[in-house]
């Protein structure tokens, strides 16, 4: 039986970078009739690589790095994002989105939902939403809310469906506000909005519809996250980004992506998704990800379920009948 190792995802980064640049140039000029790219830069690996690729494809002067911090953002986010823009020589615009989020009631609606399950939640408290690991057991996994008091004491409670949905819906204002501003600048400059999802996020529906899920082009959506890291090192993404753990930077308490969504750290998730895509049995990848075949099977099942449940995120508005000939 063919065994999967981390080498399965090794790429020739220069070759891949060139392919992406060519595709971006062609798509943006010929299909979209725009002359550059706007990228929302968060200081994470995906947006850093994307802005770098955009700068290589269109030139630094035809790439805009949009930095959009808000009240819950990690204080390092802005500095790291600036380092990224500087590394690729692109102009930055900073749009603090906190006032917009306040006006939409993002924080207030969210905190009201949190308080309905943790009544003592108030000023100085922080929270995040977590999901148990899929590899730990066969049971269903329910979202919990972890709240931290100003003195550091933490409380974890299972989230009722209504509160969970309200917190997520209110939080989605962040991604949708950012996208609105990306399109403002794209329209102003006659640029395209370049989206930043990697393959894990795109495949597993880890994005907000009409938020970070919206873009004119998604140049790294076909790359596994470990391939994005290879590309990042090659094109000169600053070390501060490469060394930063992938987080959602969405809730007031730091939250890793696997706490909230993915079953495993990205290296393992990449290999499981790759093996599953290749139609390989769990035994083929179990050693590489240090799991039992039964645990890998649970990861496979979780991948399939996420594909089913997030399919609607990918769908365009559904019409009763086709309007254009395809």
């Amino acid at each position, binding site marked *: 039986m063919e065994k999967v190792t981390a080498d399965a995802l090794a790429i020739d980064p220069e070759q891949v970078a060139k392919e992406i640049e060519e595709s971006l140039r062609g798509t943006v000029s010929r299909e979209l009739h725009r002359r550059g790219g706007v990228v929302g830069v968060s200081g994470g690996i995906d947006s850093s690589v994307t802005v770098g690729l955009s700068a290589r494809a269109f030139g630094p002067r035809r790439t805009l790095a949009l930095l959009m911090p808000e009240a819950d953002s990690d204080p390092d986010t802005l500095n790291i994002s600036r380092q990224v823009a500087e590394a690729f020589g692109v102009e930055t615009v900073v749009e603090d989105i906190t006032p917009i989020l306040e006006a939409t009631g993002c924080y207030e609606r969210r905190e009201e939902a949190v308080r309905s399950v943790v009544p003592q939640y108030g000023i100085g408290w922080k929270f995040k939403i977590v999901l148990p690991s899929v590899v730990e057991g066969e*049971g*269903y996994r329910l979202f919990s809310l972890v709240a931290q008091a100003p003195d550091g004491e933490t409380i974890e409670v299972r989230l009722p469906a209504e509160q969970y949905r309200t917190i997520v819906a209110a939080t989605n204002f962040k991604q949708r506000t950012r996208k609105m501003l990306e399109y403002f600048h794209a329209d102003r400059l006659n640029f395209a909005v370049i989206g930043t999802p990697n393959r894990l996020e795109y495949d597993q529906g880890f994005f907000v519809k009409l938020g970070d899920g919206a873009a004119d082009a998604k140049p790294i959506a076909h790359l596994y996250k470990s391939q994005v890291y290879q590309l990042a090192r090659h094109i000169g993404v600053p070390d501060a980004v490469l060394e930063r753990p992938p987080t959602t930077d969405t809730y007031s308490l730091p939250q890793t992506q696997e706490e909230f969504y993915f079953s495993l750290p990205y290296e393992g998730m990449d290999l499981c998704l790759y093996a599953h895509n290749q139609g390989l049995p769990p035994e083929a990848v179990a050693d590489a990800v240090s799991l039992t075949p039964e645990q890998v099977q649970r990861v496979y099942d979780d991948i399939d*379920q996420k594909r089913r449940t997030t399919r609607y995120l990918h769908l365009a508005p559904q019409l009763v009948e086709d309007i254009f000939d395809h």
Partner: protein
Amino acid sequence: MGIAAGGENPPRNRATLCENLWMEQNQADSQAVERDLRDFLAANYFLGDDPSQLGASSSLIEAGLIDSTGVLELVGYLEEQFDIRITNEELLPENLDSIQNIVGFVERKRQAGQAA
């Protein structure tokens, strides 16, 4: 023979009668749980044109009726409607992935609650 006349029965028959009554009561409870549950599923999920067609042993997850948030909703409903507390260890397909499994699980939880 009516129940009121049961005092004239030999003890063995009386025990059988009680068992029968208990079983009937349980059956009625199970039917009520299933009815409530079907109403909840029909009101909250898309069960198609004829919700009564959903088989008692059909997997709710595999049928695409319930996703991870749907399970959250189902657990909340069961806890409130049937006054039970479901632990994380009990969040298993054998307890929650079909109408039949849910009815059996609710019955066991209620009996355990009464015995406690």
